[in-house]
């Protein structure tokens, strides 16, 4: 698992007169946790939206290299990005299916695999053994995830009734049930307390180690970012202002300027 997994080149996104992302290039290594940080409004979520097909970028290329095939995510529709390129994401505000059970949330994420197993409905309709086996596997996989995030006893409750921290973890588990090669997490630690965010760190490191999934992370919580990232990309006003290891980024004067302002401005204020 080495080499570049995601390569963003000259990405530009304009909304009318506003340039949200301006000629941004960066790459994420396979097997790494790459963090995108930056002040509010720097364009982090817009980058995610371009990667996952919500926005069609004005310019640029987003290449995902998987199994010696390369997908240009900028030219693919949302469900194809999930089902063919195997990129999954979570949202800043939790978007579970609140009126489906916890278990169903994890099974619906395996829709594609079941779809193929069912020979596009035919085998499923007649309950052929191959399809039943696929369905059993889907349930087993979901159970495995429930054990890892400690929600086995809530499996049959509606997802909307879980507390916030548990919903976060369920959302991450659901994204992983799609078998992604790249998981994009939009502020996974937002709204979590210190203990929960430490748990999240462990979960994310465990995901990288045992599932071999590369992570792309937007986060404001510096404990999370500095604690687990291999590589950090810093954005400000849609431009990349720094790029490197956590230590290098922490010491970079451009980053300090973006977060704290110019020294003069601070003094005069």
């Amino acid at each position: 698992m080495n080499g570049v997994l995601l390569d963003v080149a000259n990405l530009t996104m304009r909304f009318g007169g506003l340039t949200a992302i301006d000629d941004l290039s960066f790459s994420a290594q396979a097997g790494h946790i790459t963090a995108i940080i930056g002040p509010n409004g720097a364009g982090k979520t817009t980058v995610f939206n371009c990667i996952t097909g919500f926005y069609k970028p004005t310019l640029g290329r987003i290449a995902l290299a998987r199994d010696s095939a390369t997908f240009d995510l900028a030219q693919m529709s949302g469900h194809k990005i999930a089902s063919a390129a195997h990129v999954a994401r979570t949202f800043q505000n939790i978007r579970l299916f609140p009126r489906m059970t916890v278990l169903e949330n994890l099974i619906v994420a395996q829709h594609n695999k079941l779809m193929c197993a069912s020979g596009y409905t035919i085998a499923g309709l007649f309950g052929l053994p191959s399809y039943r086996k696929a369905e059993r596997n889907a349930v087993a996989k979901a159970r495995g995830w429930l054990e890892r995030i400690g929600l086995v006893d809530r499996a049959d409750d509606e997802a909307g009734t879980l507390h916030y921290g548990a919903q976060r973890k369920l959302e991450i588990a659901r994204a992983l049930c799609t078998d992604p090669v790249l998981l994009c997490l939009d502020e996974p630690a937002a709204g979590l307390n210190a203990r929960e965010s430490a748990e999240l760190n462990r979960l994310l490191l465990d995901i990288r180690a045992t599932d071999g999934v590369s992570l792309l992370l937007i986060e404001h919580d510096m404990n999370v970012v500095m604690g687990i990232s291999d590589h950090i990309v810093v954005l400000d006003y849609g431009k990349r202002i720094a790029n490197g290891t956590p230590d290098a980024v922490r010491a970079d004067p451009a980053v300090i300027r973006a977060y704290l302002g110019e020294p003069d401005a601070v003094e005069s204020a």
Partner: protein
Amino acid sequence: MEYFLQQTINGITLGAVYGLIAIGYTMVYGIVGMINFAHGEIYMIGAFIAVIAFTLLGMMGVTWVPAAVLIVLVTAMLFTAAYGWAVERIAYRPLRGSFRLAPLISAIGMSIFLQNYVQLLQGARVKSIQPIVTGAIPLIETGHFQVAVTYIQILIVTLTIALMISFSLLITRTRFGRAQRACEQDQTMAALLGIDVDRTISMTFMIGAILAAVAGVMVTLYYGVVDFFIGFQAGIKAFAAAVLGGIGSLPGAMLGGFLIGLVEAYWSAYFSIEYKDIATFSILILVLIFRPSGLLGRPDVEKV
């Protein structure tokens, strides 16, 4: 008392038909948030296909009734599924993401179009077929009044209940049902998990159309007459049933259908038959005033 029982039987039969159509309204509303006003026309087309198919089968000499009914049902389902698919593809999908009223207006246009299309192709006159499923089981006989349930009534109610059960299983137990509910709750998220939302919506329209086709075939068998305008009346009543039960709720649509059917039957029996529609729609108005989310609907709670 006997009279009441007879009207209950008639009401349940009518209600079964309304319930089948109402499911189509409620499912489509659930997934795309619009009222498919052309749905009544799909039902009407189902009824016309039944008339044509029965006539053709008669000419071909298929006289064994169960086989004839089965062939007609399957034919009507296939054709209406195609219509349901086409209506969504042509009239609604291009308008998805447009302002809320656009697909609604498009739906009304589609409804008028389909009515006129059938009128042009089939003529405005009432079409009729010979009674096919005949006979009845007498239940109670007093000197002057006989309570009976006809075979066709038994067929309608059992078929409806069987369909409703298998349909509920489809939604709660299968892969398609999960995808359908996921799209209902959050389409973008469903797409991100790899669900083809367009395909799921198409399937929803086709399933709704199939259930309406069954209703159309059953009504053809029950009354023996159809014309190009029956879709409007039945459609609007089934819509009332869906709202009464709580639009978006499947058990609600079924319950609403039976209630509307019963109200209509009782009102025609004890009051004036001319005013039966007024009775039906008055109930709809009362429900909307006192329980706007319907009997089994879940109220939209806005988070402040």
